[in-house]
């Protein structure tokens, strides 16, 4: 289980190959890549600055991974989240899950990004032609997290 917070971009192919390693038990890997849009709520976005709470971020992500492991049969997980300046169309976050079978990998991957969105201490500031502003949290992200309460399958 690996959680990384870093400024530099990541190579999805290399990250997935690293997650897979030479483990013959892995039958499925599901991954999610979050990208910086060049348009948000009708405004042209010139770039993003991502801030986080060092220390708490790693703890929060580790706790989210532990929750996923209690729910599904997972062999390994990887979360890479960038901070600092991110240009439009660049990658922001990678979540990847390895398991024996696809359903565990798909469901756990979605669970991890849904929980990351509401529980991990990252904040985005958007630069537009009119200046920069902090991005507001979305109610739909809270709803996506809440939908997991009582949702199966569990181990």
């Amino acid at each position, binding site marked *: 289980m690996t959680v990384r917070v870093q400024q530099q971009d990541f190579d999805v192919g290399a990250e997935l190959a690293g997650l897979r390693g030479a483990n013959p038990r892995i039958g499925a890997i599901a991954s999610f890549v*979050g990208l910086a849009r060049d348009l948000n709520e009708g405004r042209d976005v010139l770039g993003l600055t991502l*801030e*986080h*709470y060092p220390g*708490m971020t790693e703890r929060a992500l580790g706790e989210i991974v532990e929750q996923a492991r209690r729910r599904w049969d997972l062999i390994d997980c990887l979360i890479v*989240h960038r901070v600092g300046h991110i240009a439009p169309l660049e990658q922001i976050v990678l979540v990847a899950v390895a398991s024996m079978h696809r359903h565990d990998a798909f469901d756990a991957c979605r669970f991890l990004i849904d929980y990351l969105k509401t529980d991990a*201490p990252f*904040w*985005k500031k958007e630069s537009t032609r009119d200046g920069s502003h*902090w991005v507001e949290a979305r109610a739909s992200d809270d709803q996506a997290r809440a939908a997991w309460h009582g949702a199966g399958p569990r181990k």
Partner: protein
Amino acid sequence: MKLCVLYFARLRDLIGRSAEELEIPADVATVGQLRAWLTQRGAPWSSAFEQVRSVRAAVDQAMATDATALRDGAEVAFFPPVTGG
């Protein structure tokens, strides 16, 4: 009781500092009471806590509620709802 209080993102911008060491009175025992005590200090804390909707808190790097108890030497953080991913 001594606390290290941290502010992040828009709350930090409005308060104008990212951290402060505080000596708080004995009757401030929970996160909710600390928030009220900071607010009654006046600007910039009062206006910052008013302008940022649904300020969240963490104690010793774990998410907290208004009822979470404080301890001497704790690290308490206040921040807006998170927007990563």
